Protein backbone atom coordinates (compact mmCIF):
# COMPACT_ATOMS: atom_id res chain seq x y z
CA UNK A 1 0.00 0.00 0.00
CA UNK A 2 2.61 2.51 -1.06
CA UNK A 3 1.89 6.15 -1.79
CA UNK A 4 1.55 6.97 -5.47
CA UNK A 5 2.60 10.14 -7.27
CA UNK A 6 2.22 10.98 -10.93
CA UNK A 7 5.61 12.47 -11.84
CA UNK A 8 4.99 14.80 -14.76
CA UNK A 9 7.41 15.26 -17.57
CA UNK A 10 7.54 17.34 -20.73
CA UNK A 11 9.51 16.13 -23.75
CA UNK A 12 10.81 13.22 -21.68
CA UNK A 13 12.24 15.41 -18.90
CA UNK A 14 10.73 15.75 -15.45
CA UNK A 15 9.15 19.05 -14.49
CA UNK A 16 10.28 20.58 -11.22
CA UNK A 17 6.89 19.79 -9.69
CA UNK A 18 7.65 16.09 -10.08
CA UNK A 19 10.46 16.45 -7.55
CA UNK A 20 8.35 18.65 -5.28
CA UNK A 21 5.64 15.98 -5.28
CA UNK A 22 8.19 13.29 -4.53
CA UNK A 23 9.57 15.35 -1.63
CA UNK A 24 6.11 15.83 -0.19
CA UNK A 25 5.05 12.21 -0.72
CA UNK A 26 8.22 10.92 0.92
CA UNK A 27 7.37 12.79 4.14
CA UNK A 28 3.78 11.54 4.11
CA UNK A 29 4.95 7.99 3.37
CA UNK A 30 7.29 8.14 6.36
CA UNK A 31 4.47 9.08 8.69
CA UNK A 32 2.34 6.26 7.26
CA UNK A 33 5.19 3.77 7.44
CA UNK A 34 5.23 3.10 3.71
CA UNK A 35 7.17 3.99 0.54
CA UNK A 36 6.68 6.15 -2.53
CA UNK A 37 5.94 4.81 -6.00
CA UNK A 38 5.90 7.14 -9.00
CA UNK A 39 4.11 6.53 -12.27
CA UNK A 40 5.66 8.24 -15.29
CA UNK A 41 4.47 8.66 -18.86
CA UNK A 42 7.07 8.74 -21.64
CA UNK A 43 9.81 9.98 -19.31
CA UNK A 44 13.19 8.91 -20.65
CA UNK A 45 15.47 8.79 -17.63
CA UNK A 46 13.71 8.29 -14.31
CA UNK A 47 16.79 7.88 -12.09
CA UNK A 48 16.59 11.47 -10.83
CA UNK A 49 13.55 10.51 -8.75
CA UNK A 50 15.88 8.59 -6.46
CA UNK A 51 17.23 11.93 -5.20
CA UNK A 52 13.84 12.71 -3.72
CA UNK A 53 12.94 9.52 -1.92
CA UNK A 54 11.06 7.53 -4.57
CA UNK A 55 11.53 3.76 -4.24
CA UNK A 56 9.79 2.45 -7.29
CA UNK A 57 8.87 3.75 -10.71
CA UNK A 58 6.16 2.37 -12.95
CA UNK A 59 7.29 3.47 -16.40
CA UNK A 60 4.65 3.86 -19.04
CA UNK A 61 5.90 4.26 -22.60
CA UNK A 62 3.28 4.67 -25.30
CA UNK A 63 3.27 7.03 -28.29
CA UNK A 64 -0.52 7.31 -28.01
CA UNK A 65 0.19 9.29 -24.84
CA UNK A 66 2.51 11.83 -26.47
CA UNK A 67 -0.18 14.47 -26.19
CA UNK A 68 -1.73 14.87 -22.79
CA UNK A 69 -5.16 13.23 -22.66
CA UNK A 70 -6.92 13.62 -19.32
CA UNK A 71 -9.04 10.47 -19.46
CA UNK A 72 -6.26 8.25 -20.73
CA UNK A 73 -3.78 9.62 -18.20
CA UNK A 74 -6.38 9.23 -15.46
CA UNK A 75 -6.68 5.57 -16.50
CA UNK A 76 -2.92 5.21 -16.23
CA UNK A 77 -2.82 6.71 -12.73
CA UNK A 78 -5.85 4.74 -11.60
CA UNK A 79 -4.46 1.41 -12.77
CA UNK A 80 -1.07 2.19 -11.24
CA UNK A 81 -2.80 2.96 -7.94
CA UNK A 82 -4.74 -0.30 -8.09
CA UNK A 83 -1.65 -2.32 -8.96
CA UNK A 84 0.23 -0.83 -6.00
CA UNK A 85 -2.75 -0.88 -3.66
CA UNK A 86 -2.03 2.82 -3.07
CA UNK A 87 -4.27 4.46 -0.51
CA UNK A 88 -2.98 7.99 -1.02
CA UNK A 89 -2.37 9.51 -4.45
CA UNK A 90 -0.53 12.81 -4.59
CA UNK A 91 -0.81 15.06 -7.66
CA UNK A 92 0.45 18.52 -8.56
CA UNK A 93 -1.43 21.69 -9.49
CA UNK A 94 -0.35 22.03 -13.09
CA UNK A 95 -3.23 22.53 -15.52
CA UNK A 96 -2.78 18.95 -16.71
CA UNK A 97 -2.81 17.41 -13.25
CA UNK A 98 -5.80 19.48 -12.13
CA UNK A 99 -7.56 18.24 -15.28
CA UNK A 100 -7.01 14.59 -14.50
CA UNK A 101 -7.29 14.61 -10.67
CA UNK A 102 -11.12 14.55 -10.41
CA UNK A 103 -11.26 11.79 -13.03
CA UNK A 104 -8.80 9.73 -11.00
CA UNK A 105 -10.83 10.38 -7.85
CA UNK A 106 -14.12 9.27 -9.42
CA UNK A 107 -12.42 6.25 -10.97
CA UNK A 108 -11.09 5.11 -7.59
CA UNK A 109 -14.14 6.22 -5.58
CA UNK A 110 -11.69 8.38 -3.69
CA UNK A 111 -12.33 11.66 -1.94
CA UNK A 112 -10.32 14.54 -3.39
CA UNK A 113 -8.85 17.69 -1.87
CA UNK A 114 -7.06 20.27 -4.02
CA UNK A 115 -4.74 23.21 -3.17
CA UNK A 116 -3.20 21.42 -0.21
CA UNK A 117 -0.49 23.64 1.27
CA UNK A 118 1.14 21.60 4.04
CA UNK A 119 1.83 18.08 5.15
CA UNK A 120 -1.38 16.40 6.40
CA UNK A 121 -2.60 17.86 9.68
CA UNK A 122 -3.36 14.31 10.73
CA UNK A 123 -3.26 10.97 8.93
CA UNK A 124 -5.98 9.28 11.00
CA UNK A 125 -8.50 10.75 10.45
CA UNK A 126 -6.90 12.01 7.23
CA UNK A 127 -7.02 15.80 7.36
CA UNK A 128 -5.29 18.31 5.11
CA UNK A 129 -4.97 22.07 5.15
CA UNK A 130 -5.94 23.73 1.86
CA UNK A 131 -6.57 27.24 0.63
CA UNK A 132 -10.15 28.36 0.07
CA UNK A 133 -11.99 31.56 -0.74
CA UNK A 134 -9.26 32.42 -3.23
CA UNK A 135 -6.48 32.51 -0.67
CA UNK A 136 -8.48 34.63 1.75
CA UNK A 137 -8.68 31.64 4.11
CA UNK A 138 -7.58 28.08 4.75
CA UNK A 139 -9.78 25.12 5.34
CA UNK A 140 -9.03 21.85 7.05
CA UNK A 141 -10.64 19.11 5.00
CA UNK A 142 -11.16 15.59 6.18
CA UNK A 143 -11.18 12.85 3.56
CA UNK A 144 -13.11 9.84 4.81
CA UNK A 145 -12.85 7.44 1.86
CA UNK A 146 -10.48 4.47 1.92
CA UNK A 147 -8.48 5.84 -1.03
CA UNK A 148 -7.56 9.53 -1.02
CA UNK A 149 -6.45 11.88 -3.77
CA UNK A 150 -4.80 15.19 -2.92
CA UNK A 151 -3.20 17.83 -5.09
CA UNK A 152 -0.49 20.07 -3.71
CA UNK A 153 -0.67 23.83 -4.25
CA UNK A 154 2.03 25.38 -6.40
CA UNK A 155 5.30 26.08 -4.63
CA UNK A 156 3.82 25.22 -1.25
CA UNK A 157 6.29 22.59 -0.17
CA UNK A 158 9.59 22.94 -2.00
CA UNK A 159 12.28 20.39 -2.73
CA UNK A 160 13.69 18.14 -0.03
CA UNK A 161 16.47 15.83 -1.14
CA UNK A 162 16.51 12.31 0.21
CA UNK A 163 18.31 9.55 -1.63
CA UNK A 164 16.68 6.20 -2.10
CA UNK A 165 17.28 2.98 -3.97
CA UNK A 166 15.04 2.89 -6.98
CA UNK A 167 13.55 -0.02 -8.86
CA UNK A 168 12.14 0.56 -12.33
CA UNK A 169 9.37 -1.47 -13.82
CA UNK A 170 7.74 -1.17 -17.23
CA UNK A 171 4.03 -0.78 -16.84
CA UNK A 172 1.46 -1.31 -19.59
CA UNK A 173 -1.98 -0.12 -18.51
CA UNK A 174 -5.05 -0.93 -20.58
CA UNK A 175 -6.12 2.14 -22.51
CA UNK A 176 -9.70 2.68 -23.52
CA UNK A 177 -10.25 3.72 -27.17
CA UNK A 178 -13.10 6.00 -26.14
CA UNK A 179 -10.61 8.11 -24.16
CA UNK A 180 -9.17 9.27 -27.44
CA UNK A 181 -12.46 10.77 -28.61
CA UNK A 182 -11.06 13.98 -27.19
CA UNK A 183 -8.28 14.76 -29.65
CA UNK A 184 -5.64 17.42 -29.51
CA UNK A 185 -5.46 19.01 -32.96
CA UNK A 186 -2.77 21.57 -32.30
CA UNK A 187 -0.67 22.97 -29.48
CA UNK A 188 0.56 26.54 -29.34
CA UNK A 189 3.24 27.12 -26.77
CA UNK A 190 5.36 30.20 -26.38
CA UNK A 191 8.92 29.02 -26.61
CA UNK A 192 11.79 30.56 -24.74
CA UNK A 193 9.45 32.48 -22.45
CA UNK A 194 9.11 31.74 -18.76
CA UNK A 195 5.50 30.86 -17.97
CA UNK A 196 3.64 32.15 -14.94
CA UNK A 197 3.11 28.54 -13.86
CA UNK A 198 6.81 27.68 -13.85
CA UNK A 199 8.34 30.97 -12.80
CA UNK A 200 10.14 31.58 -9.51
CA UNK A 201 9.75 35.31 -10.05
CA UNK A 202 6.80 37.15 -11.61
CA UNK A 203 6.90 40.81 -12.63
CA UNK A 204 3.42 42.22 -13.04
CA UNK A 205 2.15 45.49 -14.48
CA UNK A 206 -1.07 47.39 -13.90
CA UNK A 207 -2.96 50.31 -15.32
CA UNK A 208 -0.32 52.57 -13.78
CA UNK A 209 1.92 51.76 -16.75
CA UNK A 210 -0.49 53.83 -18.86
CA UNK A 211 -0.36 51.84 -22.11
CA UNK A 212 0.94 48.75 -23.90
CA UNK A 213 3.79 50.71 -25.46
CA UNK A 214 5.33 51.08 -22.00
CA UNK A 215 5.76 47.38 -21.30
CA UNK A 216 9.36 47.36 -22.51
CA UNK A 217 10.70 48.57 -19.15
CA UNK A 218 8.76 45.81 -17.38
CA UNK A 219 10.01 43.15 -19.77
CA UNK A 220 13.59 44.27 -19.27
CA UNK A 221 13.22 43.95 -15.52
CA UNK A 222 11.67 40.50 -16.00
CA UNK A 223 14.46 39.44 -18.27
CA UNK A 224 17.21 40.26 -15.76
CA UNK A 225 15.37 38.27 -13.12
CA UNK A 226 14.45 35.36 -15.40
CA UNK A 227 10.88 36.22 -14.50
CA UNK A 228 7.52 35.69 -16.18
CA UNK A 229 5.43 38.78 -16.95
CA UNK A 230 1.87 39.15 -15.72
CA UNK A 231 -0.75 41.90 -15.52
CA UNK A 232 -3.85 43.07 -13.69
CA UNK A 233 -7.31 42.34 -15.07
CA UNK A 234 -8.07 45.77 -16.60
CA UNK A 235 -4.78 45.60 -18.48
CA UNK A 236 -5.87 42.39 -20.20
CA UNK A 237 -9.45 43.60 -20.64
CA UNK A 238 -8.10 46.70 -22.39
CA UNK A 239 -6.13 44.44 -24.70
CA UNK A 240 -2.77 45.87 -23.60
CA UNK A 241 -1.59 42.36 -22.73
CA UNK A 242 -2.87 38.84 -23.55
CA UNK A 243 -5.46 37.22 -21.28
CA UNK A 244 -2.98 34.52 -20.41
CA UNK A 245 -1.12 37.15 -18.36
CA UNK A 246 -4.17 38.17 -16.30
CA UNK A 247 -3.56 37.16 -12.71
CA UNK A 248 -5.86 37.41 -9.73
CA UNK A 249 -8.99 35.88 -8.35
CA UNK A 250 -10.59 35.59 -11.77
CA UNK A 251 -7.33 35.07 -13.63
CA UNK A 252 -4.37 32.83 -13.01
CA UNK A 253 -3.23 32.19 -9.47
CA UNK A 254 0.38 33.08 -8.73
CA UNK A 255 2.41 31.35 -6.04
CA UNK A 256 5.99 32.34 -6.73
CA UNK A 257 8.94 33.13 -4.52
CA UNK A 258 8.93 36.78 -5.58
CA UNK A 259 6.09 38.85 -7.01
CA UNK A 260 6.83 42.41 -8.11
CA UNK A 261 3.77 44.58 -8.73
CA UNK A 262 4.27 47.76 -10.73
CA UNK A 263 1.48 50.33 -11.04
CA UNK A 264 -1.06 47.95 -9.53
CA UNK A 265 -3.34 49.36 -6.86
CA UNK A 266 -3.87 46.09 -4.99
CA UNK A 267 -7.63 45.56 -5.29
CA UNK A 268 -8.95 42.68 -3.19
CA UNK A 269 -9.51 40.53 -6.31
CA UNK A 270 -5.97 41.07 -7.48
CA UNK A 271 -4.44 40.27 -4.10
CA UNK A 272 -6.55 37.13 -3.69
CA UNK A 273 -4.85 35.60 -6.69
CA UNK A 274 -1.26 36.47 -5.85
CA UNK A 275 -1.22 36.32 -2.08
CA UNK A 276 0.37 32.90 -1.83
CA UNK A 277 3.55 34.31 -3.32
CA UNK A 278 6.23 34.27 -0.65
CA UNK A 279 7.67 37.77 -1.05
CA UNK A 280 5.76 40.69 -2.54
CA UNK A 281 7.25 43.97 -3.72
CA UNK A 282 5.16 46.95 -4.79
CA UNK A 283 6.17 49.98 -6.82
CA UNK A 284 3.43 52.58 -6.87
CA UNK A 285 3.28 56.38 -6.97
CA UNK A 286 0.42 56.48 -4.48
CA UNK A 287 1.52 55.80 -0.91
CA UNK A 288 -2.11 55.07 -0.01
CA UNK A 289 -2.46 52.25 -2.56
CA UNK A 290 -3.86 49.16 -0.77
CA UNK A 291 -1.04 47.01 -2.15
CA UNK A 292 1.30 48.47 0.48
CA UNK A 293 -0.80 46.73 3.17
CA UNK A 294 0.01 43.28 1.84
CA UNK A 295 3.51 43.80 0.46
CA UNK A 296 6.77 42.92 2.17
CA UNK A 297 8.78 45.63 0.46
CA UNK A 298 7.67 48.78 -1.28
CA UNK A 299 8.79 51.87 -3.07
CA UNK A 300 6.59 54.93 -3.35
CA UNK A 301 7.47 56.52 -6.65
CA UNK A 302 7.10 56.76 -10.38
CA UNK A 303 7.49 53.43 -12.15
CA UNK A 304 8.86 55.10 -15.27
CA UNK A 305 11.69 56.52 -13.23
CA UNK A 306 12.30 53.51 -10.97
CA UNK A 307 12.07 50.51 -13.30
CA UNK A 308 15.04 51.30 -15.57
CA UNK A 309 17.19 52.11 -12.53
CA UNK A 310 16.14 48.95 -10.72
CA UNK A 311 16.87 46.87 -13.81
CA UNK A 312 20.34 48.41 -13.95
CA UNK A 313 20.97 47.73 -10.25
CA UNK A 314 19.87 44.12 -10.65
CA UNK A 315 22.12 43.68 -13.67
CA UNK A 316 25.06 44.88 -11.61
CA UNK A 317 24.02 42.64 -8.74
CA UNK A 318 23.75 39.60 -11.01
CA UNK A 319 27.10 40.37 -12.61
CA UNK A 320 28.87 40.55 -9.26
CA UNK A 321 27.10 37.48 -7.84
CA UNK A 322 27.58 35.02 -10.65
Amino acid at each position, binding site marked *: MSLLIYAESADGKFKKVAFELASYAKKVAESLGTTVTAVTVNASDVSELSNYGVNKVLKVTNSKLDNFN*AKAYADVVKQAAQKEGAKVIVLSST*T*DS*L*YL*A*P*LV*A*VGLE*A*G*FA*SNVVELPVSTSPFQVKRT*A*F*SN*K*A*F*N*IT*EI*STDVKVISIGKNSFGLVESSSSLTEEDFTPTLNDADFN*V*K*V*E*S*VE*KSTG*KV*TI*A*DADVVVSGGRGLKGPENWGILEELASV*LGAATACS*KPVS*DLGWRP*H*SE*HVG*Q*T*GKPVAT*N*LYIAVGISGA*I*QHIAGINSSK*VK*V*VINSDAEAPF*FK*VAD*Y*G*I*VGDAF*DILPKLTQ*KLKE*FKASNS
Partner: protein
Amino acid sequence: MKILVCISHVPDTTSKINFVNGDSEFDNNGVQYVINPNDEFGLTRAIWFQEQQGANVTVVNVGGADTEPTLRKALAIGANEAIRVNAAATDGFFVAKQLAEVVKSGNYDLVICGKESLDYNGGMVPGMLAGLLNYNFVNSCTDLKVDGTSAKASREIDGGKEVIAASLPLVIGGQKGLVEEKDLRIPNMRGIMTARTKALTVLEPVSASVETKAVKFEKPAPKSAVKLFSADDLDGLVNALHNEAKVI
Protein backbone atom coordinates in the same frame (compact mmCIF):
# COMPACT_ATOMS: atom_id res chain seq x y z
CA MET B 1 -28.89 21.31 -28.76
CA LYS B 2 -29.79 21.07 -25.09
CA ILE B 3 -27.34 22.86 -22.83
CA LEU B 4 -27.11 22.60 -19.06
CA VAL B 5 -25.15 25.35 -17.32
CA CYS B 6 -24.10 24.51 -13.76
CA ILE B 7 -24.16 27.60 -11.61
CA SER B 8 -22.42 28.00 -8.31
CA HIS B 9 -23.67 30.69 -5.96
CA VAL B 10 -20.62 32.35 -4.36
CA PRO B 11 -19.72 35.37 -2.24
CA ASP B 12 -19.06 38.50 -4.29
CA THR B 13 -15.33 38.97 -4.89
CA THR B 14 -15.18 41.97 -2.54
CA SER B 15 -16.62 40.02 0.40
CA LYS B 16 -14.86 39.94 3.72
CA ILE B 17 -14.31 36.31 4.61
CA ASN B 18 -15.18 35.43 8.22
CA PHE B 19 -16.21 32.29 10.05
CA VAL B 20 -18.60 31.47 12.89
CA ASN B 21 -19.39 28.57 15.25
CA GLY B 22 -15.83 28.00 16.36
CA ASP B 23 -14.50 28.64 12.85
CA SER B 24 -16.47 25.71 11.46
CA GLU B 25 -18.83 27.65 9.19
CA PHE B 26 -18.65 30.50 6.74
CA ASP B 27 -20.20 33.71 8.06
CA ASN B 28 -22.97 34.77 5.67
CA ASN B 29 -23.58 37.98 7.51
CA GLY B 30 -23.60 40.94 5.12
CA VAL B 31 -22.29 38.85 2.22
CA GLN B 32 -23.63 39.50 -1.27
CA TYR B 33 -23.88 36.46 -3.50
CA VAL B 34 -23.24 36.34 -7.23
CA ILE B 35 -23.05 33.87 -10.09
CA ASN B 36 -19.56 32.34 -9.87
CA PRO B 37 -17.49 34.33 -12.41
CA ASN B 38 -16.24 31.25 -14.32
CA ASP B 39 -19.85 30.07 -14.62
CA GLU B 40 -20.97 33.47 -15.85
CA PHE B 41 -18.58 33.24 -18.80
CA GLY B 42 -20.07 29.81 -19.56
CA LEU B 43 -23.65 31.02 -19.19
CA THR B 44 -23.00 33.91 -21.55
CA ARG B 45 -21.52 31.51 -24.12
CA ALA B 46 -24.61 29.30 -23.71
CA ILE B 47 -26.88 32.27 -24.42
CA TRP B 48 -24.82 32.90 -27.54
CA PHE B 49 -25.55 29.31 -28.67
CA GLN B 50 -29.22 29.93 -27.91
CA GLU B 51 -29.35 33.10 -29.99
CA GLN B 52 -27.16 31.95 -32.85
CA GLN B 53 -27.87 28.23 -33.05
CA GLY B 54 -31.28 27.80 -31.42
CA ALA B 55 -29.99 25.99 -28.34
CA ASN B 56 -32.16 25.52 -25.28
CA VAL B 57 -30.44 26.60 -22.07
CA THR B 58 -31.22 25.23 -18.61
CA VAL B 59 -29.35 26.46 -15.55
CA VAL B 60 -28.94 24.30 -12.46
CA ASN B 61 -27.70 24.87 -8.95
CA VAL B 62 -27.32 22.51 -6.04
CA GLY B 63 -28.24 24.59 -3.02
CA GLY B 64 -30.83 25.78 -0.56
CA ALA B 65 -33.73 28.13 -1.33
CA ASP B 66 -31.47 31.11 -0.59
CA THR B 67 -29.69 30.51 -3.91
CA GLU B 68 -32.83 31.15 -5.99
CA PRO B 69 -32.07 34.86 -6.62
CA THR B 70 -28.85 33.72 -8.34
CA LEU B 71 -30.83 31.33 -10.55
CA ARG B 72 -33.39 34.07 -11.28
CA LYS B 73 -30.53 36.30 -12.35
CA ALA B 74 -29.38 33.59 -14.78
CA LEU B 75 -32.94 33.41 -16.13
CA ALA B 76 -32.97 37.20 -16.50
CA ILE B 77 -29.75 37.00 -18.47
CA GLY B 78 -31.60 34.67 -20.84
CA ALA B 79 -31.63 31.01 -19.73
CA ASN B 80 -34.89 29.24 -20.70
CA GLU B 81 -35.45 27.42 -17.45
CA ALA B 82 -33.87 26.65 -14.11
CA ILE B 83 -33.50 23.68 -11.79
CA ARG B 84 -32.51 23.75 -8.15
CA VAL B 85 -31.51 20.55 -6.40
CA ASN B 86 -32.59 21.17 -2.86
CA ALA B 87 -29.52 20.31 -0.79
CA ALA B 88 -26.58 22.07 0.75
CA ALA B 89 -23.55 21.80 -1.54
CA THR B 90 -21.36 20.15 1.07
CA ASP B 91 -18.75 18.40 -1.01
CA GLY B 92 -17.69 18.36 -4.66
CA PHE B 93 -18.50 14.71 -5.16
CA PHE B 94 -21.97 15.14 -3.68
CA VAL B 95 -22.64 18.05 -6.05
CA ALA B 96 -21.31 16.16 -9.08
CA LYS B 97 -23.54 13.21 -8.20
CA GLN B 98 -26.64 15.45 -8.08
CA LEU B 99 -25.72 17.10 -11.36
CA ALA B 100 -25.16 13.71 -13.01
CA GLU B 101 -28.77 12.79 -12.18
CA VAL B 102 -30.04 16.03 -13.68
CA VAL B 103 -27.99 15.47 -16.85
CA LYS B 104 -29.20 11.88 -17.25
CA SER B 105 -32.86 12.71 -16.83
CA GLY B 106 -32.67 15.77 -19.10
CA ASN B 107 -30.51 14.27 -21.88
CA TYR B 108 -28.30 17.31 -22.27
CA ASP B 109 -25.80 17.40 -25.14
CA LEU B 110 -23.53 19.97 -23.62
CA VAL B 111 -22.83 20.60 -19.94
CA ILE B 112 -21.06 23.84 -19.15
CA CYS B 113 -19.47 24.22 -15.70
CA GLY B 114 -16.96 26.77 -14.47
CA LYS B 115 -13.51 25.27 -13.99
CA GLU B 116 -13.63 26.20 -10.33
CA SER B 117 -15.85 28.09 -7.93
CA LEU B 118 -14.50 31.03 -6.00
CA ASP B 119 -15.63 29.84 -2.58
CA TYR B 120 -14.07 26.42 -2.00
CA ASN B 121 -11.85 26.50 -5.11
CA GLY B 122 -12.17 22.71 -5.29
CA GLY B 123 -11.97 22.56 -9.08
CA MET B 124 -13.44 19.07 -9.06
CA VAL B 125 -17.12 19.22 -10.00
CA PRO B 126 -16.73 19.36 -13.82
CA GLY B 127 -14.22 16.49 -13.92
CA MET B 128 -16.14 14.33 -11.47
CA LEU B 129 -19.34 14.96 -13.40
CA ALA B 130 -17.68 13.98 -16.68
CA GLY B 131 -16.26 10.90 -14.97
CA LEU B 132 -19.63 9.84 -13.51
CA LEU B 133 -21.38 10.33 -16.87
CA ASN B 134 -18.49 8.99 -18.90
CA TYR B 135 -18.84 12.03 -21.17
CA ASN B 136 -16.03 13.70 -23.07
CA PHE B 137 -14.41 16.43 -21.00
CA VAL B 138 -12.43 19.59 -21.66
CA ASN B 139 -11.17 21.57 -18.68
CA SER B 140 -9.84 25.17 -18.55
CA CYS B 141 -11.85 25.79 -21.70
CA THR B 142 -11.29 29.22 -23.28
CA ASP B 143 -13.21 28.82 -26.54
CA LEU B 144 -16.01 26.57 -27.69
CA LYS B 145 -17.73 26.08 -31.04
CA VAL B 146 -20.31 23.41 -31.82
CA ASP B 147 -21.35 22.18 -35.24
CA GLY B 148 -23.95 19.40 -35.15
CA THR B 149 -22.49 16.84 -32.78
CA SER B 150 -18.88 17.92 -33.06
CA ALA B 151 -17.25 20.48 -30.86
CA LYS B 152 -14.03 22.36 -31.18
CA ALA B 153 -12.57 23.74 -27.98
CA SER B 154 -9.47 25.55 -26.81
CA ARG B 155 -7.87 24.59 -23.56
CA GLU B 156 -5.47 26.78 -21.66
CA ILE B 157 -2.25 24.94 -20.83
CA ASP B 158 0.76 26.18 -18.86
CA GLY B 159 2.39 28.60 -21.29
CA GLY B 160 -0.03 28.32 -24.20
CA LYS B 161 -3.14 26.65 -25.52
CA GLU B 162 -4.35 23.50 -27.17
CA VAL B 163 -7.07 23.17 -29.79
CA ILE B 164 -9.18 20.09 -29.10
CA ALA B 165 -11.79 18.26 -31.17
CA ALA B 166 -14.43 16.27 -29.33
CA SER B 167 -17.88 14.94 -30.03
CA LEU B 168 -20.99 15.66 -27.98
CA PRO B 169 -22.09 14.86 -25.35
CA LEU B 170 -19.45 16.95 -23.69
CA VAL B 171 -18.72 18.49 -20.29
CA ILE B 172 -16.53 21.57 -20.10
CA GLY B 173 -14.88 23.39 -17.21
CA GLY B 174 -15.05 26.95 -18.54
CA GLN B 175 -13.34 30.21 -17.79
CA LYS B 176 -12.74 33.68 -19.22
CA GLY B 177 -12.18 33.49 -22.97
CA LEU B 178 -15.40 31.52 -23.60
CA VAL B 179 -16.67 35.06 -23.97
CA GLU B 180 -14.88 38.29 -23.21
CA GLU B 181 -15.52 40.46 -20.18
CA LYS B 182 -17.32 43.03 -22.36
CA ASP B 183 -19.78 40.36 -23.58
CA LEU B 184 -21.08 39.66 -20.06
CA ARG B 185 -24.65 40.82 -19.68
CA ILE B 186 -26.34 42.81 -17.00
CA PRO B 187 -30.00 41.75 -16.86
CA ASN B 188 -32.33 44.42 -18.23
CA MET B 189 -35.83 45.22 -16.97
CA ARG B 190 -37.53 43.05 -19.56
CA GLY B 191 -35.23 40.13 -18.73
CA ILE B 192 -35.97 40.53 -15.03
CA MET B 193 -39.74 40.63 -15.67
CA THR B 194 -39.79 37.54 -17.92
CA ALA B 195 -37.49 35.67 -15.53
CA ARG B 196 -40.30 35.76 -12.97
CA THR B 197 -42.54 33.70 -15.24
CA LYS B 198 -39.93 31.14 -16.28
CA ALA B 199 -39.96 27.68 -14.72
CA LEU B 200 -37.74 27.07 -11.70
CA THR B 201 -38.10 23.41 -10.82
CA VAL B 202 -37.03 22.17 -7.41
CA LEU B 203 -35.78 18.58 -7.25
CA GLU B 204 -34.95 16.58 -4.16
CA PRO B 205 -31.39 15.22 -3.98
CA VAL B 206 -30.39 11.61 -4.58
CA SER B 207 -28.34 9.98 -1.86
CA ALA B 208 -24.58 10.15 -2.23
CA SER B 209 -21.76 9.21 0.05
CA VAL B 210 -19.91 11.99 1.83
CA GLU B 211 -16.27 11.76 0.81
CA THR B 212 -14.85 14.95 2.23
CA LYS B 213 -15.85 17.42 4.88
CA ALA B 214 -14.56 20.89 5.68
CA VAL B 215 -14.00 20.56 9.42
CA LYS B 216 -12.50 23.91 10.22
CA PHE B 217 -11.44 27.23 8.71
CA GLU B 218 -8.51 29.50 9.46
CA LYS B 219 -7.62 32.99 8.39
CA PRO B 220 -4.10 33.79 7.26
CA ALA B 221 -1.83 35.14 9.98
CA PRO B 222 -1.70 38.94 10.06
CA LYS B 223 1.12 40.42 8.03
CA SER B 224 3.93 42.52 9.37
CA ALA B 225 4.16 46.04 7.99
CA VAL B 226 5.72 46.75 4.63
CA LYS B 227 9.36 47.85 4.57
CA LEU B 228 9.69 50.95 2.47
CA PHE B 229 12.72 52.06 0.48
CA SER B 230 13.05 55.47 -1.09
CA ALA B 231 13.36 55.70 -4.84
CA ASP B 232 17.00 56.71 -4.29
CA ASP B 233 17.78 53.61 -2.29
CA LEU B 234 17.32 50.82 -4.80
CA ASP B 235 20.51 49.23 -3.46
CA GLY B 236 18.64 48.85 -0.18
CA LEU B 237 15.87 46.93 -1.94
CA VAL B 238 18.25 44.70 -3.89
CA ASN B 239 20.15 44.01 -0.71
CA ALA B 240 16.99 43.12 1.21
CA LEU B 241 15.79 40.79 -1.53
CA HIS B 242 19.14 39.06 -1.53
CA ASN B 243 20.18 38.93 2.12
CA GLU B 244 16.92 39.09 4.01
CA ALA B 245 14.23 37.57 1.78
CA LYS B 246 16.76 35.42 -0.09
CA VAL B 247 14.71 35.41 -3.26
CA ILE B 248 17.36 36.71 -5.67
